C-alpha cells in the first residue's frame, strides 16, 4: 500500500480556532486519518515528529523567532498550507500594524522591562506568505470545514483546489437571506471572497471580510454603494481594518 502523506499542524499568533475546526470534523476525523498520517498537532495530540510532507500552518508571524521557526517548517515540508485568516492574510493581528510595535508594547505592558526578552521582540505583523512561499490557502475566520476537506482531497488527488473568486453575495443570495443593506446594516459581502457559505449574513450578522477582499475599498462601485446607502469612506475603512488592514485586494489569479 502507498504510504499515506504525513501531515503536521502548527500555530503561531492566533486563537487556534481554525485548528479546532479540524478537530471538530468529529467522526470524519477517522476519514481524515485514513487519508493522511497526522504526526504533529499540538492542540489535539501529544506526539510530535519533525518528519512530514504537508505542513498546515495557522497564525500570523510577529517576531524574529516566529520567522525562524516558520522557515524551519517550510524547509521540512513539501507542501505548506496557510490555514485561516491570521495565516493567509494576517487577519486581526494586523490591526496593530496601525501603530509602531513600540507604541503597542508601551500601551499594553506599560513600563515593564521587556528588554532582551525575545518573546516580546515583536515587529509589524506578517501573514505567512510574507515570510515563506505558501502552496495552498484555506481562508476564513474560522475556516470552513467543507472547504478544508475539499482542499485536502484536492491535494490528495493531485488537483488544484477550487477556491471561489466571486463575492459572498452569491452564496448569500442562494441562502435566500434578506440583504444586510436592506436591514440597514453595512456588510462587506459584496467585496469579500466567498466560500464561507455566507455564514455570517445567514445568521444575521454582516460580513467582516475575513476571507479577504476581492475588490479595492476605493473602487468606483464601492463608492457608488456607500453613497447610495449614505455611508462614508471612513465606515468601510474602519470595517476593513478588522481583517484586511494594510492589505490590498486579492488579485484575480490569487
Amino acid at each position, binding site marked *: 500500500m502507498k504510504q499515506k502523506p504525513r501531515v503536521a499542524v502548527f500555530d503561531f499568533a492566533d486563537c487556534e480556532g481554525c485548528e479546532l475546526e479540524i478537530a471538530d470534523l468529529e467522526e*470524519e476525523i477517522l*476519514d*481524515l486519518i*485514513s*487519508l493522511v498520517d497526522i504526526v504533529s498537532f499540538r492542540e489535539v495530540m501529544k506526539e510530535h515528529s519533525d518528519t512530514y510532507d504537508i505542513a498546515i500552518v495557522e497564525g500570523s508571524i510577529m517576531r524574529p523567532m516566529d520567522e525562524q521557526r516558520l522557515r524551519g517548517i517550510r524547509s521540512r515540508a513539501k507542501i505548506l498550507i496557510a490555514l485561516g485568516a491570521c495565516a493567509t492574510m494576517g487577519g486581526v493581528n494586523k490591526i496593530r500594524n496601525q501603530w509602531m510595535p513600540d507604541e503597542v508594547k508601551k500601551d499594553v505592558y506599560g513600563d515593564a522591562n521587556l528588554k532582551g526578552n525575545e518573546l516580546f521582540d515583536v515587529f509589524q505583523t506578517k501573514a505567512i506568505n510574507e515570510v515563506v512561499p505558501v502552496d495552498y490557502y484555506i481562508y476564513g475566520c474560522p475556516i470552513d470545514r467543507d472547504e478544508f*476537506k*475539499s482542499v*485536502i*482531497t484536492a491535494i*490528495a*488527488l*493531485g*488537483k*488544484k483546489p*477550487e477556491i471561489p*473568486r*466571486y*463575492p459572498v*453575495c*452569491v452564496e448569500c*443570495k*442562494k441562502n*435566500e*437571506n*434578506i*440583504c444586510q*443593506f*436592506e*436591514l440597514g446594516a453595512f456588510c462587506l*459581502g*459584496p*467585496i469579500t471572497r466567498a466560500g464561507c457559505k455566507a455564514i455570517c449574513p445567514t445568521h444575521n450578522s454582516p460580513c467582516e471580510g475575513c476571507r479577504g477582499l476581492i*475588490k479595492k475599498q476605493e473602487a*468606483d*462601485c*464601492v*463608492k*457608488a*454603494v456607500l453613497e*447610495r*446607502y449614505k455611508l462614508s469612506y471612513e465606515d468601510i475603512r474602519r470595517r476593513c481594518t478588522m481583517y484586511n488592514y494594510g492589505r490590498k485586494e486579492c488579485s*484575480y489569479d490569487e
Partner: protein
Amino acid sequence: MKQSVKTITKKDFSLFVNTLIKDATYDVVGVVAKGKRFIFDTLFSADDLQLQYDVTILPPKKYFLPQTESLLKFSLEKPFEEKETLNDTPRIIIGVHPYDIIALEQTDRHYLDSQQDNFYKKRRESTMIIGVDIQNVSERSFAASMKTNVTDTGFDLLLTDIGNAYAVTIGSEKGNKLLKKYATVNDASNADLKKIKTVRDAVIKKYKQKVKIDKKDWSALLVGNYHHAIWEEHADVCMECSSCTMVCPTCFCYDVKENVSLTLKDGTRTRTWDGCMLKDFTKVGSGEVFRDEVKERYRHRFFRKGNYLPERYGFVACVGCGRCGSACLPDIADPCNLINELAHFDSQENTGRFFITEENEMLEKGTIHVPRSATIKKITPFNELDTLFEIELDDKKPLGHKPGQFVEVSVFGYGEAPFGISNPPGNTPVFEIMVRQVGNVTKKLCSLKPGDKVGIRGPLGNGFNVQSFEGKTLLFTSGGTGMVPMRSLINHVLDPKLRDKFKEVIILYGAKRPKEITFMPDVEQWKKIHDVQCELTVDRCEPNECWGGCTGLITTLFPKIKADKLDSKNTIAVVIGPPVMYKFVIKCLQTLGIPDDNIYVSLERRMKCGVAKCGHCQMNGVYVCKEGPVFNYGKLKQLPEAFE
C-alpha cells in the same frame, strides 16, 4: 378553452391546506414571512401562508433547479461506476404569482424542448402549482408592463382573493382531482367571475414602475444600442456580485463541480447556480476568459433577456418581478430602468442579428448528464505538450461522429472537459482525442494508463457538413491545437472512398514552435500526396531546435498557395486555431477572393454541459456547444462576441 372556476371559503381553504399537510402525500410548500420579506418554504400550517405577499426573495425556481443538486454519484474504487441521483417526493407549491408561473413556462422551453433535462423534467412532473393572483405589488415590480401580472396557463389551480372566499381557476386535470379529493368547493357565480376581473384590474393601478417600450420592441432597441456608452457607464459601478442573476426567475445557467469524500472512495458531481456576471463564468481550462470586461458581462445579461432568448424561443426572458432591481446594491440591474433609459436615445446602429439558426440533429440519448463508460486503449505522447489518446466505448458502439464534433471526457473525481475528436468518422467504437495539459482534468488524463476507464458524453455539437463541400477545392488552415479537429476533417476528405468528390486539397498549418507541431506523421503523409499541397510554418524557433522549414506566422503561408489551383469562388476554406488567429487568416482568405459564405470556422469556448443548458459557452445568442463549434463565417461574422 374556458376554464372551470370554483369558489372556496377561506376557512375551507385553510382546511384544504392543512389536510394536504397532514396527508403527507405531498411536500407542501407555500409563501411564508421571513422578517419583512417573503420566501417559499415548507408549510407547517395554513396559518403561516402569506398569500397577500408582494414578492418572494427567490423565485420558486429553487424547487425545480435547486441552488445545488447532485447530478450523479461515482465510485473511485471501482473502474467505472456511477448512478444518476433522482429522488424527489411529489410537491405542491402554494402561492405562486403569475410572473413566476410564466418564468417557469419559459424555463420549460430551455430544459424540456430538446435534450431534456431529467432532473428538471421529473420535478416539473411531480410538482403541482397553486398560483395566486397578485394583491400587493412590490416596489420594483413592473409585471403589468410585461403583461405577466396575469396568466391563463402554467398552473394546476389559481386562487383569486375575492373577499371572504377564493375563486379557484382550474388549470389542469391534476388540479381538478386534487380539489375533488381534498377540498369543499362551490361553482363560481357570474358575480364571482366579475370579482376576479375587478381584483386583477385594481392591482394594475398599484404598479409604480412602468416600462416605456413594449416588450416586443426591446430586442430592436437593444440591438440598435449594442455599442452604446450606457453599458460601460453602468458597468463602472457594477459590483460583479451576480445578485441580479441569482434572484432572477428566468436565469437558469449553472456550473458543475466534482466533490470527493475525505476517504477518496466516492464522490458526487453537483451542479450549482452560476451567474454570467461572474468573471469565471466564461473561463476555459487554459485560463482564457471570453467575456473579460465587466461591461461585456453587464450587457450580456440584458441582451440575453431582451434579444438572445427572444430570438431563440420567442419570448422576452424578463417577467418584471423586480427582484434584480431590489437586489442590486448600486441599482443598475433593473431592466425597467435600463430600457427606459435607452428609450431616450435613438438607435445608433443596426448590427443585425446576434443569433444563428443552425439545422442540428442533436439526438435524444436518454440522460444528458451521465457519461458512457469507455476504456483508454492507447496513449501516445506526441510532443512536449500533447498526448494522443485512443479511447474505446465499452458498449462497443461506434461513436458516430462527424468531423468537427467534440466529446466531454470525464475523469471521476477530477471533472469533465471538452475535446475535439481527431480521427475521421468510422465504424469502430475507438476514437482519438488530443490532450494538452492545462487544467485538472487534462493533467489527470495524462497520468492514466491504457486500460483505465473514463466517461464519455457525445459526440456533441455541430460538425462539418462535408457533403456540402463536394465538388469544391478545399483550403484547410489550422493553427496550434486547431489541427486536432482539422485532422479528422482532412483525413475524412482524403479517404480514398471520398477523395474523388473534392477537388484540390490545400493544407496550411502553423505551430508556435517546432516541438509543438501535432500529428507530424499525418503531415508527412499529406505532403507525399500529389494533389495535396501541404505547407507548414512555425512562429519561432529556438537556436537549439532543429527546423529547416518555414518560419513566420500562419499568414506567411498564403503566398505559397499555387494560384492556378485556387478557383476562389469554388473554394471552401476551413479555419481552426487560437482566437487571435481568425482575424488575420480571414483577411487573407478574403484577399484571395473567397466569399465569406464559403468560409467555415470552429471556435473554442467554455463548453461545459455540451447540451446548450449551462450557458457557459454562450457567444451573443449562440450556444457554441449546440449551434457550433463549427460555424459558417458568413453567418458568424454578425456576432460581435465571436472574434472580439
